[in-house]
C-alpha cells in the first residue's frame, strides 16, 4: 500500500513534496473527517486502518 499516493490530494499534510508526518498524526489522532474519508474510500487503506464492528467501521489508525 502506498499511503503517500492515497493521501496525495490532501494539501494540509504536504510540505511541497514531503509528507508532513506530525500533521498527519495529529489529524489521525483527532479523527479528522476528511482524512478518514480518504482512507476509508481506498480499498487497501480501509483494510489497514478500519475494523468492522457490527454494521459500522471503526478507525484504529
Amino acid at each position, binding site marked *: 500500500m502506498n499511503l503517500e499516493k492515497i493521501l496525495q490530494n490532501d494539501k494540509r499534510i504536504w510540505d*511541497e513534496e*514531503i509528507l508532513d*508526518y*506530525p500533521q498527519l498524526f*495529529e489529524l489521525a489522532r483527532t479523527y479528522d473527517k476528511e482524512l478518514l474519508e480518504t482512507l476509508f474510500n481506498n480499498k487497501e487503506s480501509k483494510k489497514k486502518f478500519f475494523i468492522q464492528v457490527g454494521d459500522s467501521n471503526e478507525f484504529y489508525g
Partner: protein
Amino acid sequence: MSFMDNQKLSEKIDKAKEWFGESILPEIPEAISNNLKHNMWPLQEEAFKNFLFYENVKEGSSNESLPNVEFVKKDEPTHLMFNMATGSGKTMLMAACILHYMQLGYRKFLFITNQTNILDKTEENLINKLHQKYLFDDQLMINSERVELKKVDSFSKTKNFEIRIETIQSLHLDLQESNQRENINSLQELNDLDLVILADEAHHFNVMAKSPKSEKDIEENWENTILNKIFRHSKISLEENKNKLLEFTATIPEKKNVLEKYQDKIIYDLPLKKFREAGLTKEINIVTFTLSQKEKILYALVFNWYRHKVALKHGIKNFKPVILFRRKTIEESRSDYDEFLKIVKNLTIDDFNFLSTDIPNKIQDANLGQSNNFGHTRTSQILEELEDPSMRNELVDFIKENFNEKSVVITNSKDNKKKSESITSDLQKQLNNLEDPRNLIRAIFTVQRLTEGWDVQNLYDIVRMDQGVNEGGTNTKVAPATVQEAQLIGRAVRYFPFKYEFSDTHKRKFDQDLDNELRILEEFFYFTYDVKSRYLSEISKYLREKGYVDGPPIIRVEFKDKFIQKNKKFYNNGVYWINEVLSKDFDQQQDIDEQDLKIEYKLQALEIVEQYVTFSELDRPERVKEKTYPSTFKLSEIEPHILHKALNQIYFDGDYMSFSKFKDLFNIENSYEIFSNTVLSKLTVSLESQYQTLDYMPNKEILRIVTDVLKEFLQKVIEVEMRNIGTDIFIHESLNSLHTTPKRKIYKPSQESKSLEAMSVLTTIQNADWYITSTILDEENTTPNFFPGTDEERDFCLYIESMVPSLKEVFKNVFLLRNEEKIKLYNYQSGIGFQPDYILYLQKNEKLFYYVLIEPKGPQLINTDSFKELFLEQVNNAFGMNGESLHANNFEYKIIGLPFYVSKNSINVFNSKHKLPNQEDRSYENFDNAFRELLK
C-alpha cells in the same frame, strides 16, 4: 614590517575590501553555484568569496580588477583555514571548494578527519546522491562535461575525479612502511599527484604546534604526515608544488604556537558570537532543578510536547523536536533508558501532578544573560496550556505515541562489552539525520558518543541526569567533563529553519517578541540538577566566553503604575483602534501596480582598480570608472532558454520556487506560458551597464540580470498574493489589554542612544505624567542607560514636551502612548500592515477624544514609506475632525492621521540627499502646522 603583520589573513582581506571596495571580491561563478543543490547563505558566500579572491590573486587571474596584495603567498602551495562556528555550514563550503578545484583540473581529493562518525556524514554530503543532505547537484557539470566524483579507497592513475574519505589515524598508519599494501597508495604515489586535502575538525591535527617534542615524536605524529610528508613533500620545490590544503574547524586551540601557525592562513573567521548575532542559532537556556529522576524526564517531555503543539498550531511543517539524556557512565545511561521506557509505558495523567503543585519552586534559570533566562517563562506558558484537563490526556497520548522503543535510542549496543560506547553504523546514520521527516528518533540516551561532527537542527533539550559536580577541575581550570558538556550544548545551537510569514526561514524571528509562543521553537534548553555548585558557574563561564550566551539587554515596557492609579476611568474604559482586514483572491492584472512592472537594475562590478599596491603605502589608489549606458528591455525579448534557466535557479528562503507555485500563482498550465500569458510578459527592465545594447552582453550576464529581476519581482508577487486588504471598518480593543503581559524585547542600543542628551530625554519621559508607559531593564528592574528608540523619536518626544503646556490649556488630558508594535493597521489598497509609532490621546471634554496617529520618520525612509503617510491622510479624511466619529464605552473618538514627524535636521538631509528629482522640498511645517491645528 607592515602594520598589518599582526593581523589574521581574513582581517587583511577585510582591509583590502575597505580600501578597494567590495568589487575586488569575485562573484561566485555559475559553474559552482549551478553544481550545488542549494544556494549558499550570505555568510558562506562571504567566506567563499574570500577564498576565491585569495586563489585568484595567487593564480594571477586575468580579472584586472584584482589588486595584487602582498599577503597572498604565491611561492608556496595554498594552505588555508576556515575557522567557522559549529553549524555554519563548513561542509557546504568544502563542496564549493571541491568544485572550484575541479574546474581548475584537480582530480584527486583527500578528506581527512579524526572521527569515524564524521566520515559517514561526509560521505552522505559529498557522495550519496540519494541522501537528503547531499550537497551537489544531481548531475555535476565540469567544463561542459558530465562528470562524477567517486569515493575510492586508493587513488587510481586515471583522470577520474576521486575522493578518499579517511580518518587521519588510518591514513597515517597506511603510510607507515611496515603497513604498505598493494591496494593502498604509497607515500610516493601520493607525492606524484596534485592533491586537494580537506581537513575537517582540523584542531585535532596540531600535535607539533601544540607541544613541540623530539625529532622522533615529530616524525611519528599525524600532523607531520599530513603537513610535511604529503602536503609539502620534498620531492619538488615549494614553488612547483600544486597541492592544496584547506583546513576547517570551529575551534582553533588557544595556544600561542597554534594561533601563530594559523594567523596567515585563516581565510575566514566566523566566531559563534557573530553567527549568533546574525540570528542564525537557537538561544541557549539553562534551567536548574531539584526534581526526582522521573520528574526530570517528564519535565523534558512536557517541553517537547509543547513545542510540537505550538508548531502544529502555526502550521510549521515536519517539526519533530528531539531530547537528549546525558549521563557520565554507560551503566547509568542504560538504567535511565530502561527506566524511561517503563515510565512511558505506565504513564497516566496523575504523573504530571508535580507540575501544578511545586514546579515553580523547583526550577531556576541559570544567570546566563538576558536572552537566555526563559525557563520560568516557558514553564508558565506550558502550565497555562495544561490548565485545560483535556490537554493532559492529549499529552499522555502524545508521549506514548512518540516515545516508545522504536523512537528512543541509546548510543550503546546491548552486546557491547567494551568500556566505551559502541553503536551500529545504521544507528549512526540515523543519528546524523534526525531532521529527516521519516526519522523516528525522538529521544537519545548517551554518555559521550555524540560530540564533534554531529550537528542537529532539531535537538531542543538536553537533560543532564547526573546530580553531582564533574571531577578534575581546579579553581582556574574547568573540569574536562564540563567542557565536554558545554561542547555538547554547542551541538544543539544550530537553528531549525521554519517558514513563518515573510521572515527569513533560516534566522531567528522573535528577538523582538520574546513572549510570542513561537519563540520556544528557537530556544534550546539544558536541564540540570545542581543549583549552586561550581559546576554551574563553570559551564556558564565557558558558554559566555565562547559567545554562546549573553548579549544585548532585554527591555520591558508596561503602563506606568502612576498613570493607572491616577487615570482609572481612562485606563479601564479607554480603547485603541484597529481596522478589519479581508482576505482577497490574487488577481495578477489588478493587484500588480504598473510601477511594480518597471524594474531598475544596475549591473555591478563596473569599477576597475589600478594594479599592484602594498599595504605599507597608505595612499588609496585612484579608481577609474568605466563608461556606462542606459538601456531598456522587456523580459519577453530575452531568449526563452535563458528565461527558463533563470526561473530554475530562483531560490527563496532556503527553497527553490517550484513550478507548482508558479502554476497556482498565475493560473497557467505549463511553464512556457509564464512569460507569454502572465503579467511577467509586461515586465520592463531599465538597465545601466557597460554594454551599449543587450546584443553585446554575454549570456551569463543576461542570465544574472534576469535571475535577479525575476527573484525581486516574484518575491513581490508572493507578498501581494498573501496579503489581505485593510477596510474602513474600525473596531476597538480595551487600552488596558494592551500590556496585560508587559512587552519584552531585545534592544541593542546605539552609541548615540547613550549620549547625555538621549539620557535627558529618557528622564523626561520616565517622569512625565503625559507619557504613559515606562521602559525598564527586564532583569535588573532599573531604568536603562540608553534611550530605547531612534533619534527621530527622541526629537519627537522633545517636541511633545515643548507642546504639552499649550495642549493642556485646550485639552483635559494628554496621554502619549508608544505603540510597541502591538497596534497594527492595514493599508486600504495594498493591505500592507503598519504600526504607527505613537498614539496621542487628547481628551477634549468628558465625551470626546482625539486619537492622533503619529509616525516619526528618518529622512532615508520618507519616500520608501510614503504609502503609510498616504494611509494616515486617508484615515484623517474619513475619521478626522471633519470625518465620521467612532464610539466606544461612551466616548466619542476622532481618528486623526498626521504627516510624518521629521526633525529639522532630518528635513535638511532629506531635501539635500534623498529627495527624488521631481519632488518638492519638504518642510518642517508639514507636521507642525497640522499638529497646531489640533489646538484650535
